[in-house]
């Protein structure tokens, strides 16, 4: 068993990857990790298939409709002009990440990250097909015979199926899922669907099947800068070095060193050097070497160590979530530290801003553009006419009945091109109108500020207005 130790040895420029075969383990953190996995997969794989009836638009609960330029999230429909909300969402995600990292270290990596989730599933497949660590190591060493080809082949086959379904599920968020499913397998889907599925299948296979911990250690940028979010009070997966090593280091169980009393009397620590914590680690590190970059805080070593401690009847927590300060001085970390409060406030503020943004999406927007060729026209009776191009976008799921008012121009006559008197905008659609404004000529005035106002005839929407100008010369 080799461990990737980045704290002491000079890292080499390139080294062939040595496969890691983690042992499976039961325990609190394993259960939490599995429940997050089930929840995340449940959402990712089933969500595109959830139907959702809308008055206008597709019947899919979550659909990112790029050609139609709409993002459908249940009853929320995001139009291109409201896409800034996405930025708000990303900012919130970032602050939430900082907040969690400041509090409990790299927990995101250990439980929620896609890389972790898919690697975990792929390892489970290995476990089902090839058996646990010992059997896998044996299989690794044996020559390529029928058994090895069969087991490795079956593993790869199941991996490929999962990777394919991962790619397809992703593609299903961007098109009507059942339709895409039928089209995909009859060869009628758009090429983008095949390319997306193919690329995601390939990257999933490579990242979760073969690259695994190398992604966390060498590729992931977050691994590089997360340490700046840590402080002495951040909860990290820690090996209680004082307890484990004692004054004369860790020693395996042997005659005369079987109970805690015997061990403590001889100055030996509680760690019996069983190496189970190393064997269960998905990144193959030894947590007893201290805080290191490759640790993704998944807590499986805690489960492993606790299992041994319980078996011996010794207190748990030789490896546990503890802050650096706690290990050093025994002081429990305070959760209400400046950093946590700061990140917490920022998170709450961004959440508030996002909610405000969502609630204040305008049900309709319109723009008025003055037609500049010509800027003004003299009519046969000597009055002046200006023309405008008006675009009204009804973002609601119901038709709108609007009235156009003009403010700021005395004696003005407004007419809508085509002779329409009311503006009926169908649900979720855009209409263009040509607006003619006619006013008596005024000598000495070149330009007049005017305001177009759209009033909802049913009164469901507060009037919205747009500034423009009227030119006399």
């Amino acid at each position, binding site marked *: 068993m080799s461990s990737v130790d980045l704290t002491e040895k000079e890292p080499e420029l390139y080294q062939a990857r040595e496969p890691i075969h983690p042992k499976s383990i039961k325990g609190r953190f394993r259960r939490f990790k599995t429940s997050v996995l089930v929840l995340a997969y449940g959402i990712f794989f089933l969500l595109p298939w959830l139907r959702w009836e809308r008055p206008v638009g597709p019947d899919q609960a979550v659909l990112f409709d790029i050609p139609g330029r709409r993002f459908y999230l249940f009853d929320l429909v995001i139009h291109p002009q409201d896409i800034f909300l996405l930025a708000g969402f990303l900012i919130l995600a970032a602050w939430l990440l900082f907040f969690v990292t400041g509090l409990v270290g790299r927990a995101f990596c250990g439980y929620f990250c896609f890389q972790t989730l898919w690697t975990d599933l792929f390892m489970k497949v290995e476990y089902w097909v090839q058996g646990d660590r010992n059997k896998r190591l044996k299989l690794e060493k044996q020559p390529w015979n029928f058994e090895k080809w069969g087991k490795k082949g079956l593993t790869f086959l199941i991996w490929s199926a999962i990777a394919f379904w991962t790619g397809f599920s992703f593609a299903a968020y961007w098109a009507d899922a059942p339709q895409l499913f039928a089209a995909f397998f009859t060869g009628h889907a758009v090429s983008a669907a095949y390319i997306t599925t193919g690329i995601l299948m390939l990257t999933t296979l490579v990242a979760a099947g073969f690259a695994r911990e190398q992604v966390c250690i060498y590729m992931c940028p977050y691994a590089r800068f997360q340490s700046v979010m840590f402080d002495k009070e951040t909860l990290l997966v820690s090996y209680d070095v004082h307890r484990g090593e004692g004054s004369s280091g860790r020693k395996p169980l042997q005659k005369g060193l079987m109970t805690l009393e015997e061990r403590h009397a001889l100055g030996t620590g509680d760690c019996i050097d069983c190496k189970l914590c190393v064997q269960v680690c998905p990144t193959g590190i030894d947590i007893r070497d201290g805080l290191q970059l490759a640790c993704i805080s998944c807590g499986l070593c805690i489960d492993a160590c606790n299992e041994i401690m319980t078996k011996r009847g010794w207190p748990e927590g030789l490896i546990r979530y503890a802050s650096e300060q706690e290990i050093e001085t025994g002081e429990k970390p305070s959760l209400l530290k400046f950093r946590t409060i700061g990140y917490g406030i920022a998170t709450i503020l961004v959440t508030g801003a996002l909610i405000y943004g969502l609630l204040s999406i305008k049900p309709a927007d319109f723009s008025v553009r003055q037609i500049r060729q*010509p800027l003004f*026209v003299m*009519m046969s009776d000597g009055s002046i006419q200006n023309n405008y191009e008006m675009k009204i976008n009804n973002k609601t799921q119901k038709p709108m009945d609007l009235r156009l008012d003009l403010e700021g121009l005395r004696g003005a006559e407004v007419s809508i091109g*085509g002779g329409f008197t009311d503006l009926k905008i169908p649900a979720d659609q855009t*209409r263009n109108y040509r607006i003619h404004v006619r006013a008596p000529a005024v000598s000495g005035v070149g330009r007049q500020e005017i305001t177009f106002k759209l009033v909802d005839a049913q009164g469901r929407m507060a009037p919205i207005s747009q500034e423009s100008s009227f030119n006399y010369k």
Partner: protein
Amino acid sequence: MSQTPENKKGQVETTGHVWDGDLREYNNPLPRWWLWAFYGTIVFAVVYWILYPAWPYAGTFTKGIETVSFTVQDKDGKTSTVTEHWNSRALFNKDMESSPSALAQKEWLAKVKDMSFAQIAANPDTLNFATSMGHALFGDHCAACHGTGGQGVLSVNPDGSYPNLTDNNWIHGDSYEKIVSDITNGIHGNMPAFGALFKGEKLNDLAQYVLSLSHQEGVNEEAANRGKASFATCAGCHGANGQGNQMIGAPNLTDKVWDFVDVPGAKTIDEKVKLVEGVIDHGLQHQMPKFGDRLSPEQIRLLAVYVRQLGGS
């Protein structure tokens, strides 16, 4: 240069060439994957030459065996398949026939084809289609003279003027049918020169009278009154009151709109008088070409819808 068999295990391989006693040439071969990728590009290039246009020779070039096929529909509605060698022009042609936007346009065209003008104008959707397509056609065929927005050109030189289509003044009438027939058949605008009939004082009086019809400021009332008698000559076309005649395209002289000389732009009454005198003296010869053989009847219909709504009719 001497040959020395010096390659030891664990060291970088040398080619065995030695200069000046100790200068050795290392042999650092490229990674194998790199080499295969290089061979791959050569194979790719050969396949590409065969499939696509590639090699120039003697005034032409190899066309490649890849083709682009698409169906086209002629005027009578007959469809046929066209196959061209692959090139960007063929791809463009295919797009123009069968891209989603081309198909959508065809669908809309079919929809408005049998609609009356009133029906097209009554629905915001069909009106939008007609005006946006009409706008594109206008840009291609009409904008050179009438301006991109239909604003026309109003110059002091009557021959350099093109009517403004965005006002509410229609020289030839504003019915859809009339606009369609004008675009299809073109327009010959002709006012004879009256220079031989009206000269000097008489010409000035008539011009003053014409300007007084539209209540221009600074008109000499006396002269205008004198000129009124001469206007009888003009009344044949422009009507007894100068209100024009759309049947023969004689402009209304009593409104504020001037189509052929820039009277509103002239600063003094003398300049205005001079402009009008020029028209009376030399007459007007205007011609708009006929577009009936350049545009299809459908295109002309859409153009008419666009032109008619320019001024807000």
